[in-house]
C-alpha cells in the first residue's frame, strides 16, 4: 500500500477532492451504463407480455360475442 493509513488514503495528500470526484463520476457513468440496458430489456419483455395478454383477452371476447349465439342456434 502506498499510504500509511486509511485516513491518508482518503486525504490523498491534499488532492482528495480531485481524485475522489473523478472516481465518483466514473462509478456514476459505469453504473448508469450497466443498468440502463438491463432495465430497458426487462420493461420491454413485460410490456410485450401485457400486450400479448390483452390481445388474447380481446380474441376470447370476440369469440364469445361473435360465434357464441350462432353456435347455440345450430345446436338447438
Amino acid at each position: 500500500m502506498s499510504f500509511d493509513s486509511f485516513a491518508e488514503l482518503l486525504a490523498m495528500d491534499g488532492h482528495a477532492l480531485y481524485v475522489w470526484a473523478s472516481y465518483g463520476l466514473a462509478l456514476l457513468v459505469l453504473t448508469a451504463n450497466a443498468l440502463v440496458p438491463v432495465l430497458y430489456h426487462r420493461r420491454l419483455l413485460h410490456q410485450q407480455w401485457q400486450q400479448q395478454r390483452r390481445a388474447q383477452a380481446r380474441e376470447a371476447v370476440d369469440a364469445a360475442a361473435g360465434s357464441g349465439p350462432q353456435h347455440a342456434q345450430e345446436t338447438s
Partner: protein
Amino acid sequence: MWTWIKQLWHKLGSPRWFYDIAASWIRWLLPIGILCIVAGFVWGLAFAPPDYQQGNSFRIIYVHVPSAMLAQSIFITMGIAGVILLVWRMKLADMVIKIAAPIGASFTALALASGAIWGVPTWGTWWVWDARTTAMLVLLFLYFGVIALRQAIAREETAGKACAILAIVGMIDIPIIKYSVNWWLTLHQGATFRLTAAPAMPPEMWIPLLITVIGFYAFFVAVLFQGVRGEILRREHRTRWVSELVAQRGALPGAAS
C-alpha cells in the same frame, strides 16, 4: 478460418441468433469487466506509488485514460458498423450504431470531466483550448449529432443510413485526437501506451492502468450487447420467436434477464 468467418457473417444476419449468443457472452464479459475495473481502481488508488511531480492527483489517470481510449474506440466501432450497414445492409450494424452512441457520449463526457478535474491541480486551469481537448469536445458533439439525427428522422431505415454516414465521416476526428499531441505542442501530454516502446512509467503504475483499460473494454462490449438485445426485442416484436419468448418470460418484471 475463411469458411468460419463466412458462417459467422451469415449468422450475424439473424437477430435471433445474436440475441441468444450475446447473452452467453455477457455472462463472461460483464463479470470480467467489473472485476478488472475494481482491481484496477483499487490498485491505482491505494497501491500504485504517487507521481514524483503530480503527487496523488496522477491517480485520475486510471479514470481518464481508459474512458478516453474507449470513447474513441466506440466511435470507430460505430464507423465500421456504418460501413457494414451501407454495404451489406445488416440490421445488426444499425442497432450497434444506435446503442453505442449514448454509451460513447457518456465515456467522452467522463474523459472530458476527469481531464478537467485533473487540469485544476496540474495545469492550474480546468479547461484549455488545447488541440486534444478541443478535438475530444468535437467527438462529444459528434456523438450528440448521431443521437439527435436518429431522433429527428421518423423513418427508421432512413435514420439508420443517415447515422451511418455521420459515423463514417465523423471518424476523421479520431486521428486528429490521436496525433494532436504530436502535431501541436500544447499542454496535453503525449501517449501513455505505445505499440513500439515501453511505457514511460514504472510497471506498478502502468499494469493497473492496463487492467482498467481491459476492464472498460470488456464492460463496454457487455453493455452494448445487452442494449442490442433489447433493440432486437423491440424491432422483432411481431415475429413468432419473440412472442414465444415473451409468453415464456414476460410474466414477472423481475424474472427476465
